[in-house]
């Protein structure tokens, strides 16, 4: 669906290379010593083609919002690079950055926190136009945006608290749309909304995409919504990308054990093959990630390979697998990608919680 006007090999709109974001953990009041770091995003490499929707899924705390903020240049990367439309924007500032801001916008998760309670809708949606000195009748432009996002233009002078959650999210979308961006990062745009309203916001986003040739990075922990909107889907675990593939390939033939577990956790009614892979243990702390493959303390596939619930293969425990192609357009970061016949459910059931705990302790000691 993307129309590449430049011709030749389609250059991606966004190309992220080895992006790292660590938040320092400090102690002490006057002399702040750094005693560690939260590894929020580690070695993230991906690209987003023009006009596509890249879904990004993962559990809470795996670094999705940090990725969104990095893309929108709201936090400074610790390392790595972000190219947008062929231009390196990793460390841009000042006027050059203002130019990029017009092209990259973000829709936030919380429609309550992301709107200033003391500003009217007109002020909120008009702010980007004002800041960038866009010519024209501002009131008309704002009301036009309100109409496009399904808001009543007569509510121009109302305040956010007078709107429902869904309508507030429409205000957030109208604001993101005001500068006619090419990329919109949607950080869990529907997670805070009622289920019935989620559907309306999702279809608003898809309609706007068609109308304005938008590219989306669509972040969610809801695999169903991501499946609905995405062309390709990326899966994150503990700050790292573990699998990236076309939507159908990812949902139907996941190759990374973690992806398979996530997908199996989506309730699916009464089909024959619908037992869950129940992972033992919790997601380890991103301040102290495990050695080797970050998933190894909980990984059922590693136990299938070793044949012993208490043992993982040497390379899983010590070496970080990199994202490698397992099929055309399908990459996974795993030493032993899933093959048909792997019984992860049984392997996971065979793992006692103590085993996982011990493995975690060993890996992070």
């Amino acid at each position, binding site marked *: 669906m993307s129309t590449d006007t430049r011709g030749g090999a389609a250059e991606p709109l966004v190309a992220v290379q080895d992006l790292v974001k660590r938040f320092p953990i400090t102690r002490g009041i006057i002399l702040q010593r750094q005693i560690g770091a939260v590894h929020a995003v580690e070695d993230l490499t991906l690209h987003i083609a023009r006009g596509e929707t890249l879904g990004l899924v993962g559990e809470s705390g795996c670094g999705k919002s940090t990725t969104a903020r990095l893309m929108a240049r709201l936090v400074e990367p610790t390392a790595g690079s972000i190219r947008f439309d062929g231009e390196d924007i990793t460390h841009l500032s000042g006027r050059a950055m203002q130019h990029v801001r017009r092209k990259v916008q973000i829709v936030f998760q919380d429609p309550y926190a992301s709107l200033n309670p*003391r500003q009217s809708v007109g002020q909120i949606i008009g702010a980007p136009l004002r800041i960038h000195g866009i010519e024209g009748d501002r009131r008309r432009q704002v009301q036009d945006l309100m109409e496009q996002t399904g808001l009543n233009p007569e509510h121009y002078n109302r305040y956010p608290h007078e709107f429902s959650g869904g309508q507030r999210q429409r205000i957030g979308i109208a604001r993101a749309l005001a500068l006619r961006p090419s990329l919109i990062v949607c950080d869990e745009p529907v997670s805070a909304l009622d289920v019935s309203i989620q559907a309306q916001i999702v279809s608003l986003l898809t309609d706007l995409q*068609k109308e304005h040739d938008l590219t989306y990075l669509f972040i969610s922990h809801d695999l169903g919504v991501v499946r609905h909107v995405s062309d390709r889907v990326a899966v994150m675990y503990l700050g790292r990308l573990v699998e990236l593939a076309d939507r159908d390939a990812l949902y139907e033939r996941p190759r990374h054990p973690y992806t398979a577990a996530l997908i199996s956790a989506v309730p699916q*009614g009464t089909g024959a093959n619908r037992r869950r892979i129940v992972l033992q243990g919790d997601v380890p702390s991103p301040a102290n990630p495990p050695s080797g493959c970050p998933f190894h303390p909980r990984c059922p596939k590693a136990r299938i390979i070793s044949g012993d619930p208490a043992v993982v293969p040497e390379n899983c425990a010590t070496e970080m697998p990199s994202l490698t192609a397992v099929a055309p357009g399908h990459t996974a970061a795993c030493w032993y990608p899933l093959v048909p016949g792997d019984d992860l459910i049984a392997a996971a059931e065979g793992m006692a919680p103590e085993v996982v705990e011990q493995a975690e302790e060993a890996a992070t000691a």
Partner: protein
Amino acid sequence: MTGHIRPFPPDDPRGGPHAHPCTHEPGRTALTTAPVTGGEEPIGIEPATVPGVQARTPWQLFLMRFRRDRLAMASLVFIGLLVVLAFAAPLIAGISGHDPNQLFRQMTDDFGLPKGPNGSFWFGADASGRDVLVRIAYGTRVSLIVGVVATSVAVVIGVTLGLIAGYRGGILDTLISRTADIVLSLPLLLFAIGIVTACGSSREGCFGGAVKPGLMLVIIVIALFSWPYVAKIVRGAVLSLREREFVEASRSVGAGDLTIMFREILPNLISVIIVYASLLVPQNILFEAYLSFLGLGVPDSTPSWGRMISDASGIFDVAWWLMLFPGIFLLLTVLAFNLLGDGLRDALDPKADR
């Protein structure tokens, strides 16, 4: 987007009609059927406004709550009357025919003691034979001017410094916060006495004549000592406001630091500032009274409540009116501003526990 928009189809390999956890939610089917644009959300789920009730702006809500607060309304009326009294002071002097600094021989007896209230001197006279009522009316001017102007200056300084300290953090924050701490830890009355005596003892003033004695000096001293309260409150509020998502949203559309500080954060501080300022006014009125009581405030020719109370202190056992009337005015004024401040706080932030 993908070509076929058939969300969670029944033939989904993930399984039958229960393809999605939300299949049974009544609204879920809306994914394929809901009108996308121009649609109000279905009523009954999340109505935008309560039907039949006019949407209220924050300002209207505030007015509604404030009007219900009897004490605060009474205080507001009292303060309004004080303002009228301050403006009408020359009028009262004209009607009674008593100038505030005019000495009336007939109002002191042979021992030099003043005479009490009578038909022409309603509040009696002071030891020099001046009309207490007229002087109280003029004193209202001093109290209100000092209270309001000194507070305004303190608020402007305090808000600006508090915003910078809270928003920028780092070395600027350290500098501003420590300065505020130092000012707050100074023995304020002693220090004020020092400045006022140094600058107020001679007509030339101090700092090469830059600071002259009088009302202006009193205002400057009081403002100098009250901005740190404002700065600290504002800084604390900014620290939490700047982490709010709408600040990040504003940055994402390209807003700079100044825009964020003054357009995004400042409007959220208005209620804090109003409440705090209304509580600072009575404090500063009292402060002026202390200074005047000590003979360090405005010059004797300008009537001031503090000065009048001070003058009364030697003879109040025989001339009770000298102490009583200015005392009552001072008490009621301070009380009214405090009650008004409390009322404003309740009306602006009904959730705040007290």
